[in-house]
């Protein structure tokens, strides 16, 4: 939007936040980013039986400029990664990413040289969705969880403070190579 970034802090912000969150979450337009079998389930979720139109998001935009949600459906090869990043960069702010399925979330069973081990290596991911492929209900569940996240998003100075906090937490967090068990 833009105007809310210039509003003075505290002024109208909570009501503007609520309104903006409500509008944003109910008009998400996903970019088509089907890469593999998960795309079939994503298409099924858009079709009549599951009907994403109920959440105001039936139009899968082929152009990233008109989309604000990227559903990465399928395995991302190393060759596809720069393309994915470019599509993400071309999308207008605010934008969100769902990593749909095991491959997009972590590389899944394709733990090899060709596949990016999770799209969060390339773009920031908001929701990870397990499953191989996840059924349409699982995708809708992920979308609804994302809606909840978007609805509670802060704006302006509050957002900046949250971003700073998240960054500080990320810097203080245990590095991946020191983690134990499956997180390693």
């Amino acid at each position, binding site marked *: 939007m833009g105007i809310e970034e210039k509003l003075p802090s505290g002024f109208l912000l909570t009501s503007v936040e609520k309104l903006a969150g409500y509008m944003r979450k109910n008009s998400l337009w996903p970019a088509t980013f089907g890469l593999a079998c998960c795309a079939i389930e994503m298409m099924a979720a858009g079709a009549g039986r599951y009907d994403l139109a*109920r959440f105001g998001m039936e139009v899968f935009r082929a152009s990233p400029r008109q989309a604000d949600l990227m559903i990465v459906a399928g395995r991302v090869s190393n060759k596809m990664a720069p393309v994915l990043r470019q599509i993400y960069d071309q999308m207008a702010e605010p934008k969100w990413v769902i990593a749909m399925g*095991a491959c997009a979330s972590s590389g*899944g*069973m394709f733990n090899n040289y060709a596949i990016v081990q999770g799209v969060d290596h390339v773009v920031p991911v908001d929701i990870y969705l*397990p499953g191989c492929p*996840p*059924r349409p209900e*699982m995708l809708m569940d992920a979308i609804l969880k994302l809606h909840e996240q978007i609805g509670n998003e802060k704006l302006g100075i509050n957002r900046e403070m949250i971003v700073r906090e998240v960054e500080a937490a990320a810097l203080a967090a245990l590095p991946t190579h020191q983690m134990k068990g*499956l997180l390693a």
Partner: protein
Amino acid sequence: MSEIEKKQDLSAVEYTDISIGNENAKPFLTQLKGFWVTFAMMFRKVNTVQYPEVKEPTAARFHGRHQLNRHPDGLEKCIGCELCAWACPADAILVEGGHNTDELRYSPGERFGAVYQINYLRCIFCGLCIEACPTRALTMTNEYELADNDRAKLIFEKSDLMAPLQPGMIEAPHPYYPGTDDQDYYHGKVKSSHPSQQNNGQVK
């Protein structure tokens, strides 16, 4: 005008008339038949499942989230053999076995699963782990709402995967049912817990 120029001259192209006046057009009633199919669909029952409000049950054997089962008295079935981890094609399971003692008994027999993690980011829900499990400790539920916003949250620990306690079960660790051994558990002779098993066999 040469042959090629004639082809390029658009005014010379003969268009087939598709208007109603066309003699070759289908009769009006035949056209209406086509529209009728579309029109009649409006009175059909709606196919859409209203998902978050209405949850259609999955197929009975749908592969959902895993569950670690218990014996009827509450002892864990998992013996920490790691066969599920070996069977997993995605390397999503991590098991570390531990030794049972008479003071601290989690499962019948010598060993129990001390650490049990399933990485749902990697899991492909193929069910090979369930086939590999020799004690039917690991099975799958029909639960599928697993999405989350953090990678670490999607690595399920043993406490997330353990089956809830049914009536008559006591949380492990606790000793064997009085007068039984591990064989009796596998032969299904233990049907429920015994009061002496409470508080890990200690009388309060």
